[in-house]
């Protein structure tokens, strides 16, 4: 069993104390079950979360948001809301100095190049997954009291086989009492960074994410940089990532600085967060003020998908045609907290649209 185990996987062995031979390590760390192929030791899954739909005072459910977030319909809505300002997405970036390349192209070749460029830019707008923070499950794999106090330090075994993704890497810890446990997430993150270092991710959490520094950066409106660095440093279900991103989203909401995040990869998550926590009034107001009626409609539809039991969802469902103005009106009448302001801006927008249509008719006739 031990021999087959070695041949199948590459095993890496680390401890705070002395390094022993692989044979000793395997003798200490190997269990009777072949835990590499059972696939039983997955991450903490969200099935427990799905069952746990406790309502709090605001009516937000403690559900796992990721299954809803990753739905195609929702992703499409969020993409449309994010928009695509090509100048902003392809804007000035820090990259290695290169000479400009000049090409002589036909019209068809130019169109093809533009399409490819558009595709590359779209990849930049991929939204980071919106998840709840993980819960560590420390189920013991085996209890071996005979092995208690084998050393003064715990041993951490990491499977460094090629082709295994960081999230699915098997990392186990031999505790001092002799039990073999699945490593907690923090240990797994450290091992991943040691054996599979990733650019932009530091081993120690950057001091930028401490309270003082975060506050300073938020007051200076460096929202995009904080979010980008959080994406590089943490996993989407890391408690630190969740805290930092939620903090930035609420700061953006308070400052009404939605335009800063538009056409970036973070706008979709911002909108989802606001709708999930029923705080989307300011965003809706911003959209109406900028005459983005289709975006406003998409936001309300998103609200209906996330909160299917709400009054807004039922009133929108009753509408025959999902016309943008009617949908937004349904939301304002049922769910909105800033009713007066939203009605006013909707009215102003409708008037502006009417005058625009009239002037177009006149110019065409």
């Amino acid at each position: 069993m031990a021999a087959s185990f070695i041949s199948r996987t590459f095993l890496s062995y680390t401890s705070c104390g002395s390094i022993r031979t692989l044979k000793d390590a395997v003798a200490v760390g190997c269990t009777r079950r072949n835990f590499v192929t059972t696939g039983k030791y997955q991450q903490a899954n969200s099935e427990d979360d799905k069952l746990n739909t406790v309502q709090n005072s605001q009516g937000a459910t403690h559900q796992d948001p990721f299954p809803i977030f990753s739905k195609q319909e929702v992703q499409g809505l969020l993409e449309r809301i994010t928009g695509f300002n090509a100048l902003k997405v392809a804007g000035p970036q820090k990259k290695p100095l290169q000479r400009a390349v000049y090409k002589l192209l036909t019209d068809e070749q130019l169109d093809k190049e533009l399409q490819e460029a558009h595709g590359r830019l779209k990849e930049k707008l991929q939204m980071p997954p919106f998840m709840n923070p993980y819960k560590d499950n420390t189920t013991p794999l085996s209890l071996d009291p005979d092995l208690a106090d084998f050393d003064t330090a715990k041993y951490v075994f990491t499977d460094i086989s090629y082709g295994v993704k960081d999230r699915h890497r098997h990392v186990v810890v031999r505790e001092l009492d002799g039990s073999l446990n699945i490593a907690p997430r923090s240990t797994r993150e450290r091992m991943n960074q040691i054996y599979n270092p990733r650019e932009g991710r530091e081993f120690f959490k950057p001091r930028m994410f401490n309270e003082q520094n975060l506050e300073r950066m938020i007051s200076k409106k460096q929202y995009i940089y904080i979010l980008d660095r959080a994406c590089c440093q943490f996993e989407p279900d890391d408690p630190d990532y969740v805290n930092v991103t939620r903090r930035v989203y609420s700061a953006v909401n308070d400052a009404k600085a939605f335009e800063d995040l538009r056409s970036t990869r973070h706008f979709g998550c911002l909108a989802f967060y606001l709708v999930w926590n029923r705080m989307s009034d300011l965003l809706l107001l911003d959209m109406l003020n900028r005459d983005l009626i289709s975006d406003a409609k998409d936001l309300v539809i998103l609200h209906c998908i996330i909160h299917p039991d709400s009054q807004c969802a039922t009133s929108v469902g009753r509408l025959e045609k999902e016309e943008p103005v009617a949908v937004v009106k349904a939301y304002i009448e049922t769910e909105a907290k800033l009713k007066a302001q939203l009605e006013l801006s909707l009215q102003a927008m409708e008037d502006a649209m009417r005058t625009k249509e009239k002037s177009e008719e006149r110019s065409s006739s």
Partner: protein
Amino acid sequence: MKMAAPLRSWIRAGCQTLQGLKDSLSMSLLQKRNLNVTRMLGTEKEAEAVEEAETGGEAGEAEKDSRRKVVSPETSMKYLDSEALGYRGKPVWFYYRRNFKGRKPPPTRRTCIRKGQLSTASPCPICRDEYLVLNFQNVKLLEQFVSPYTGEVLDSMLTGVCQKQHQQLIIEVMQAWDEGLLEKKLPTRVYDYKDYKS
């Protein structure tokens, strides 16, 4: 016959031994130039008294004969905001010209400052100005040494700083990146949603 002053005094002193010659030479030089060489004075106490009188009672911690003022990072930050900054709006290394033979510049020197004072001619842009202190909080100074196009620290061959200052610069820039005072160049993280579906 015209003789050098030290030689005259030696003859007057009538010293025969080498030590006597040395002593008398140094004494006359001392008298002419007012050099502060403590070991030539009588007792240690006298020496301390002279030092204190000269430095105005300051407790010189690091360098005994330091001609280089030690400036705090906060003062440096004020200096970079002040009108006293005389670099015409350009980075502090812009108008610095290195002296070397030939066309291909060699690597910059190891250090301009030895034993607390400038020990070279044409010191590098940071060493020549005591009020330019490399510190992670001194963002305005650090930004001048970071390329706005690549986000990397500029090579010492371009800026002309000595190697010791260049290493210190890299350390301070890395600390500023860590604290979030300077924006680092970040890669675009790509997610595979399948990894997150349980």
